[in-house]
Each structure stands twice: as C-alpha cells, then as structure tokens.
C-alpha cells in the first residue's frame, strides 16, 4: 500500500467552551477521492481548517508527504501544495478568467503584466481540466458552475498534491456536477488526492473511493465506499438518540380541512417542484439531511424565497406570496432555524420580542396597549415555562431553549393558522426540547396546522402525523400514520435496495 499524503492523528481542536474535534484520525492517499461525511456541526469544516492552517490544533499531529507539518495560514498550506476550493466561489467576478486563475502570480515583463503570456498560460491550465472558455472573458459572464471550475483551475495551477473541495456542488445542477466529476477524475488519475465534502449521498457513492464519517466532533469510522451501504452510512452520520424524552401523547383528533395546498411549487436551483397538503390540526414533519431542501421548502411556503413554478392555496384560495408580509397576512408564521440571525432581537426584552410580530400585524399607528402586552407576556411565559419568568430581561441573556420559546411565543401571539418550525429544538437541552414538542402537539390539538422540520429523525417521527421525506432537493416520499425511524432513514438514504420494507414502499406517495 502506498503512503498516505496526508496523515492526521489524534487531532483535537477546541474553541472557547467547545470541543469541536476530539482525537480524530484522518488519512488521505494520493490518487483517491475521499469523502468527508457528517451532519451539520459534525466537525467536517473544522477538520479541513485544521489541515489548511485556519484553526490551531490543540492536540495531535499532521503529517504531510511524510513530514510533520503545522501550517499557520492557508497561504502556507497552499504553497506546500494543499489547495482549497470553497463552497462559495472565492474569485473576483469582475475580472477576467485568466486574471482569476493567475492573480498574484501573473507573468510579468519589465515589471508590467504580460497580458498575452497570461492568457496563454491560463488557456493551458484550462485545457488541462478540459474547460474550453475564452480566458479573456469576464468571469461573471459565466454560469456559477463554470466559475467553480475556474476556481479549481486556479487551485491546481500551483501543482497541488491535495485538492480540498468543500461542498463544491451545492449550487450546481446535474449536468454541471457531471462535468465537475469528470475533472475530479482527471486530477485523481494524475495522482492528486481529492478531499470532497458534500451533503449529497448520491454524489458520494458516484465519485468517492473512501470515506470518513464524523459525528459530534468524533471519528465514527473510515470505510471503503463500496463496502458501506447507504443505510449504514446514514445511521453512522445521524446516530441514535436514546429514549430520554417523555412520550408525547398522540392526539386522537382527526385532522380537518386542508389549510395549505402547494401544487408543483418549486424554485430552480433550490428545490424541485413538489406537492404538499397540510390540514388543520395536523403536524407534518419534514425529514431529510442538511441540504436536502427541507429549509428551502419552508422558505418557499413563507414567501422568503419566491417560487418560480406552481401555485399555493391557503384555505382554498390561491395566494401569491410576494414576501414574508404576504405570508403573515395569509396566516403563516415561520420560525427560522437560525434563531440568532433571523429570529430574536437579542438586546430587546422578552416582552418587546414577544409583541414584535403582533405590532407588525397591527401597523405602527395602533400601538399594543401595555395592559394587553403584559397579559399576553404573562400568559405565554406561563404556558411555555419561559425561565427566568422576567418579562424585562434581555432575550440575549436567556438560554438557547428559552430563546426558542420566546421566538415560538412571538408567533403564537399572532394566532397563525400555519406554524412553520425550522429546527426549533437545535442546540437546546433535553428538557426544553420536550416542552417545545409538547406545545407543538397541544397547538395541533387546538386546530393549528404545523410544519415541523428537524434533523433529528426520532423527533420528527414522534411529533408528526405525517412525515414528508426530502432527498437531494426533491420530495421523495410522504409517509402516513405510524412510521418508524428506520423507514424514514431508509428513504433519506435512498437507493431503494437497502432494506426498505414493503409497507413503506406502499406508503410512498410521490
């Protein structure tokens, strides 16, 4: 067996208060495509950044080409032959293709840039990866996919021995991904070691030779891709949460009229057209891996992104969602997954946060009376058990779980017909998690429709009446009634032949 070009042993990385990586081993061989797998927060980016010198390593050693190394900046790693292409194209769109490839190392003649030589050199590098575009054209005039390939041309311009691709395919369509993979194979065959990070399982099985799975900052395992089934991969990535949470009592109430009906709703590059029906008094779960399109569905239903196909009916009437305001007017509330950036206003008090959405609904000319505000605040603090029960405390000082409760209360104050919850329980403790799940169940029992999105399958399955499964930006299934975690997991993993039992296949609606 050949020597690994990168050999990381017992790597630990710590941030203030957080152990981002704990004793992770990672090997990368020349001429292989190695996929780094894991859910959000598993430590993939941290591992890459530990390798390329962005993060300092607390413990462990990195050997590169047999030598012990410790890069202190990405530029050093790049000079040594480790090039990284990031998720967003990190080039300058306003410059030409040739400049973007050679910026900072342009051929010069008597101190001035030799444009002709530069274009020729760029054309050579583009030809190496089989990309035939005019090096003199402006980068912006090309589609994102081509820009991504230009970024790769820049990365290999320095004779890279290791090429790190951090989610390079997240904005590409199928043809573009095929083109990227062709180039990856060319480079692999030249002996470049390619480290590939993606959330798309299909792509992992198509391109990678070997994979390393991380979960919660720890190494789960290193496998040959061919020897690991999808279902095993998904369960390695997601793990199993033991039954710490109290059982939620199933509501016996029958779901009412359809409240929201989406027909062929979709947005190019974000989520493929899908049908969805949510009835009154029903909790619909949305399951899928990160990047599967679950958040995108929510954003479409809330009007945060504009759909470019299909139509949406609320209460039987067609509505055009021109933006979140229109959605709120139609009775839709959306609690974002990123509660810090898109949810709470950390510096305002619990009371002010609570009445924000209500004030917006009333218009600025009709201030919320202090008495009404106090009543509402007292009611929801008690209902949701927000702690500490002090309406004047700044929300930023509350724990994550209580912040989430304030956010939930804010939307409940407006009495929405449909409540969309994107990852309402992420990063909060078990107790608060159970409380929020219970509130969701109670709300549905009172007739509210809820769309519940979570990365934790157990939670989705427990809370929901129906589960919609997303994979690779498509709705792949809709499961009714009592579904098991295993069924959903099989569908998320896809591929169909990995032990999906008959009952589930019958339940697949689309």
């Amino acid at each position, binding site marked *: 067996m050949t020597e690994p070009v990168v050999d990381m042993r017992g790597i630990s990385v710590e941030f203030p208060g957080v152990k981002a990586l704990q004793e992770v081993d990672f090997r990368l061989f020349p001429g292989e495509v190695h996929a780094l797998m894991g859910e959000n927060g598993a430590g993939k980016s941290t591992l890459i950044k530990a390798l390329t010198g962005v993060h300092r390593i607390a413990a462990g050693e990195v050997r590169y080409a047999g030598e012990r190394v410790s890069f202190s900046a990405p530029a050093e790693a790049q000079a040594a032959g480790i090039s990284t292409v990031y998720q967003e194209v*990190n*080039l300058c769109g306003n410059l030409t293709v040739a400049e973007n490839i050679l910026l900072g190392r342009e051929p010069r003649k008597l101190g001035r840039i030799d444009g002709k030589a530069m274009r020729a050199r760029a054309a050579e590098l583009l030809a190496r990866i089989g990309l*035939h575009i005019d090096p003199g*054209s402006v980068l912006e005039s*090309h589609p994102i996919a081509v820009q991504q390939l230009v970024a790769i041309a820049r990365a290999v311009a320095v004779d890279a021995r290791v090429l790190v691709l951090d989610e390079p395919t997240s904005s590409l369509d199928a043809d573009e991904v095929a083109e990227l993979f062709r180039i990856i194979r060319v480079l692999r065959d030249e002996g470049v070691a390619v480290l590939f990070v993606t959330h798309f399982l299909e792509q992992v099985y198509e391109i990678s030779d070997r994979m390393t799975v991380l979960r919660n900052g720890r190494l789960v395992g290193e496998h040959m891709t061919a020897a690991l089934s999808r279902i095993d991969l998904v369960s390695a990535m997601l793990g199993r949460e033991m039954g710490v949470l109290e059982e939620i009592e199933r509501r016996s109430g029958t779901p009412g009229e359809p409240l929201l009906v989406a027909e062929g709703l979709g947005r190019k590059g974000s989520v493929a057209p899908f049908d969805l029906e949510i009835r009154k008094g029903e909790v619909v779960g949305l399951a899928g891996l990160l990047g599967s399109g679950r958040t995108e569905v929510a954003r479409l239903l809330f009007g945060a992104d504009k759909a470019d196909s299909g139509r949406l009916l609320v209460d039987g009437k067609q509505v055009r969602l021109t933006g979140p305001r229109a959605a709120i007017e139609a009775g839709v509330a959306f609690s974002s997954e990123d509660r810090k950036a898109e949810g709470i206003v950390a510096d305002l008090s619990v009371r002010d946060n609570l009445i924000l959405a209500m004030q917006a609904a009333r218009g600025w000319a009709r201030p919320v009376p202090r008495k009404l505000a106090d009543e509402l605040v007292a009611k929801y603090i008690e209902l949701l058990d927000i702690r500490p029960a002090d309406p004047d405390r700044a929300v930023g000082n509350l724990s994550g779980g209580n912040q989430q409760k304030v956010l939930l209360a804010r939307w409940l104050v407006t009495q929405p017909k449909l409540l969309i919850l994107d990852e309402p329980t992420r990063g909060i403790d078990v107790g608060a998690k159970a409380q929020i799940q219970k509130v969701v169940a109670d709300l549905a029992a009172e007739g509210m429709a809820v769309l519940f999105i979570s990365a934790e399958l157990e939670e989705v399955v427990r809370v929901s009446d129906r589960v919609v499964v997303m994979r690779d930006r498509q709705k792949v299934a809709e499961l009714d009634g009592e579904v098991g975690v295993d069924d959903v997991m099989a569908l998320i993993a896809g591929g169909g032949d990995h032990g999906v039992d008959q009952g589930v296949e019958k339940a697949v609606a689309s």
Partner: protein
Amino acid sequence: MITPEVTATATAPGRPRGGLVNVPKRFLPVIATFVVFVATFGVGSVRYEGFASGQVMANLFIDNAFLIVLAVGMTFVILTGGIDLSVGSVVALSTMIAASALQAGWPAWLVVVTVLATGSALGLAMGWVIHRFGVQPFIVTLAGMFLARGLCFVISVESVSIKDPAFRELATGSIELPGGVTITYGVVIALVTVLAAVYVLHLTRFGRTVYAVGGSESSARLMGLATTRVKVGVYVISGFCSALGGLLFSLYMLSGYSLHAVGMELDAIAAVVVGGSLLSGGVGFVIGSVVGVLVLGTIQTLISFEGTLSSWWTKIVIGALLLAFIALQRIIVRRT
C-alpha cells in the same frame, strides 16, 4: 480526452464579430457616457455658432484639468469600493500652502514637493486609520475633509494671491497645437496623470489588485493578494492627486483661499459615477472618469453659451444625469 468539452454559454468564445452589437458588457457604461458627451456637444454645435470649434474643446480641458486629476485619484478609491470626501478640502489646503509658501519666498520646486508630500501624507493617514481600525471610509475621509479645511484657516483666513514669476509663467504659458488651438501646461500634466493611472491600473499587479479588492475583498485576501497595501495605497494616490489637482487649481486661480473648491469632492465623485464606475467597487475605467469630467464641463459650457440661464442649471442637469447613470448601472448589473 474523449469527453465532451465545455464551452461557456454566456459569452461566445473568441472575439465578437458584428461590430458594436456585441460589445462586452463592462464597456457599456463608458460607451454610454461617451454617447452622452457627443450628444451634449452636438446639441451645443447645432444651437450655437462657434461651439463646435477646437478651442472650445481645448477649453474644456483647460477649465477642468484639476478636476480630471481629482477624478483619477477618486477612481482608484471608488474601484476598491471606498470613497474619499477629503479631496475638495485638500485642494483648498494645497492652494493655501502653495500661495503662502511662495509669498514667504520659498522656491517653486520646494513648494511643489511640499504640497504633494502633504497631500500624500494626509491620504496615507486616512488610509491607515481606515485599515487599522476598520472604520468606514466615508467617516474617516469626512474627518479628513474638516481637518484639511480647518488647516486652511489656520494658515490664513484671507485670500493669498500668487505673484511668483515661475508660477505665473506656468499658469499663463500656452502650447500651440496644430490648427491654432492652444492649451495650458495644466492640461499636459492632467493628461500625463491619466496615462500613468491607466498604466498602473491595467498593467501592474497593484492595479489589478485594486480591481480584485473592489470585486470581492475576502476573495482577494484568500487568493493571497496584498489587499492591505492596496486599500491604504489608493488613499495615498487620491491624496497625491488632490494635492496635484490643488497645484493646478492654484495655477488656474493664481491664488490660495480657504474657501476654494468647496464641494469639489462631489463633482469628482459625480464625474467618476457618470463615467461608469460602480460605487460598490470593482467596475470602472479611468477613461470613463475623464469623459465624465468632460460631460460635466460641456454642460457648464452650454449654459454659459446660453447666457440667460443661471449656472445652477449645471447642478440640476448633473443631478439628473447622475440618477440616469445609477439607474443604467443597476439595469446592467441585474442582467448579469
């Protein structure tokens, strides 16, 4: 390789055939500015006898030589996505230093060097503060603007006239071009500045990094470019150009005065924007800024030929033009 080849669909490979139809999009604003310039000049030629003469054209350059130099410096700053509000005040400070130093009997060459050094140093200081403390360029150069204007009054509150023979000779001397058209030395200095700027921006690493920083600063840094040097450097260049513009202005007015060039920074910014540069950075050409100055100058000339119109009409027309150009740029940007 037996694999399908990718060709980009957005722009056809190779040079476009068919002349004007297929001009690269980045040249469109500059071409639009040029069309506006030709059109306004054309209107003047049709309406007024003697407008379409070489000398009127030459006067455009003579009357706006200092503004051309300012616009060149401003172009560097705006290309990085910054802004420099201090240029008008630095012009005034330069005229003040030049006039009072000459009055005190300093040799002309020393005066020139002092003025240029002062302007560059002010630019360096502002650029350093912007970089070191991560402050908005708008605020830092606003402070620079007040500082420079205040320093003028420290030197003198009165207007100081320039009597130095060398300066007077430079100011009044003229170069005759074929066709009986005369230009001043100031025009030559301005044009040399323009050529130098074009060379630096397009043929040196510094210049390309200016564009890269304006396009995406974080990308430029990840690509390992010298972003700090460039971000501070453009303010030094702008400061230098302001001082040089101030020298040209003192030749033009033959005096130094604290209230010279009030609001001239806005004329310079207007010229750069009308010339097709994006205020967000990364897009624009020095030549565009020069044509932008000429457009402003032509409107002024038109109004003076009209005779009955108040000179404030210049401001009104410039305002309308600015709005039109910003709208045009948004349309172009949105299409990409």
